[in-house]
């Protein structure tokens, strides 16, 4: 049973009752029971039965069960898209246990529930949204922070959860920025807390409300840093649109473990058919964030 003191949150279209503090919009006034429960407890003895190993630290049984052991951090067990049990290592701090919950157990739960997960960030423009997809270090968060500086709402950073009807969900209410990226955006690092003490990446808070509705993704930019002097935008058409979606799949091995590759492909095809896509290349060192944002906004408004 979950503790009576558990907090109630709303994120990724779900109400979440959690014994661990999470960077999600407050859902105190929402009805319980919540869609998802997150408990701190010992992993139940039956959890490991019938699982297949898909990596040195993770095990699956279809979309029913997922187990991952992160040394010195925690073991996370996820069941049927509803329940997460977290068993922290004795030496682990809360921030570390929370960070890995957000990047392993929660994404696994969202895949169990049938969503499409991409490595991406997403920004609201009018009543639609723009997604940037790309691998770690490609500049997603830097772009998101640049849009935030200009007064736009950021729906999510790094983990982009897409509903089967191609809407983007509001995720965690933070952007995670490395100090160099914060400096580029003229954001003072001193005011921000690191996501965990062992690394210097910083948490830049967002202000998500509890009643945010998913928004349609109309534009997707596959981003990358290359040896160029200024941002370059190139439309992606036809079947080539599937490649960046495939390459930026969040945790492809989870899909393999859950045998969800076919569904993932269906969802990707649906998303590719519903959004305009382009490749955005920007300078490796400077990002040229302001001119990149202007290129994106011009493309969005049809001025390109």
């Amino acid at each position: 049973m979950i503790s009576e003191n558990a907090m109630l949150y709303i994120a990724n279209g779900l109400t979440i009752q959690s014994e661990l503090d999470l960077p999600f919009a407050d859902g105190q006034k929402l009805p319980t029971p919540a869609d998802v429960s997150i408990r701190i407890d010992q992993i139940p003895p039956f959890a490991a039965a019938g699982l297949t190993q898909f990596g040195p630290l993770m095990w699956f049984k279809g979309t029913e069960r997922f187990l991952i052991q992160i040394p010195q951090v925690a073991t996370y067990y996820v069941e049927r898209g509803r329940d997460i049990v977290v068993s922290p290592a004795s030496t682990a701090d809360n921030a570390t246990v929370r960070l890995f919950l957000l990047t392993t157990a929660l994404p696994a739960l969202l895949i169990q529930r049938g969503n499409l997960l991409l490595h991406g960030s997403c920004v609201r423009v009018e009543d639609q949204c723009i997604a940037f997809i790309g691998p770690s270090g490609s500049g997603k968060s830097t772009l998101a922070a640049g849009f935030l500086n200009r007064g736009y709402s950021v729906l999510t950073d790094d983990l982009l959860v897409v509903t089967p009807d191609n809407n983007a969900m509001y995720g965690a209410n933070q952007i995670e920025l490395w100090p160099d990226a914060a400096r580029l955006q003229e954001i003072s690092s001193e005011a921000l807390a690191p996501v965990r003490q062992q690394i210097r990446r910083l948490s830049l808070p967002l202000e998500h409300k509890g009643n945010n509705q998913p928004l349609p993704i109309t534009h997707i930019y596959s981003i990358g840093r290359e040896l160029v002097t200024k941002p370059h935008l190139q439309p992606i058409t036809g079947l080539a649109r599937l490649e960046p979606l495939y390459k930026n799949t969040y945790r492809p091995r989870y899909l393999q473990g859950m045998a969800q590759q076919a569904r993932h492909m269906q969802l990707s095809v649906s998303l590719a058919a519903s959004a305009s896509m382009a490749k955005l290349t920007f300078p490796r060192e400077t990002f040229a964030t302001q001119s990149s944002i202007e290129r994106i906004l011009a493309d969005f408004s049809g001025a390109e």
Partner: protein
Amino acid sequence: MGGIYWLASYPKSGNTWMRIFLQNLLAGSDAPININSMPSHRIASSREWIDDVLGFDSADMSADEIDQLRPAVYAWAMREPGIGYHKIHDAYTHTHTGEPLTGRNGTLGALYIIRNPLDIVPSLSHHNGCSLNEAIDQIADPNFALSDSRDALPSQLRQRLLTWSGHVESWTNAENLNLEVLRYEDMLSDPLPTFTRATRFLNLSHTVQSIQRAIEHSSFEELKKQELSGGFRERTTEARSFFRQGKSGNWRTNLSENQVARIIESHAQIMQRYGYLDNNGSPE
């Protein structure tokens, strides 16, 4: 059942050339492979590889923390289909528990390519956009590491190199490692027997003709031509080109007497062992 053959070297020692040779050999085509179509994930320090196998982001851990988990990733290769040939620049170091960074299981062998440090220095200086003296300092620094930023996310994991001598010794003295050592200079001066030795060690099927053709398809002239026409994605921002001269002995025109003396002072023992110094300690 799979496993890994490591293509190990200090940077700027011919590793990319060897990988292009192997890709050409494996492709067996009439035309050279496109150097920009080589799989980029095949370096041991690839975040994409490590993150996929671990199931979480290496970016969420410190470099020291992730080093403790790297052996498990490479050992997992034994459970995946096909044998992999992966580049590695890390020195052969160990985790806190004494396990080799490359893991005890999963490694089928290591092909170690060594190059005269007198020639590495000008090449490093060009590649990294640093002075020759800075490059000399780098190869003598036991704490030097690639991708070592803590304020940004490098695309690769931190790679501890040790000194040039330390790097060579770490691999060539490694216990229980199936090892073959090649000299870059022999790849240049005596390509057929040298590349044949590499091919045999890596257990790849071949004929004299297939090796000869792969050598031609990865010749310096061919690589330079491809880079001039289509660029090379492994070039750094600082370097004007990746494939520069493809020769040995350039140090004679690039380094001062004092610079040569500094390099020899730091690395004489290993240089002598691999024939880069004569019995009197003078460069060959």
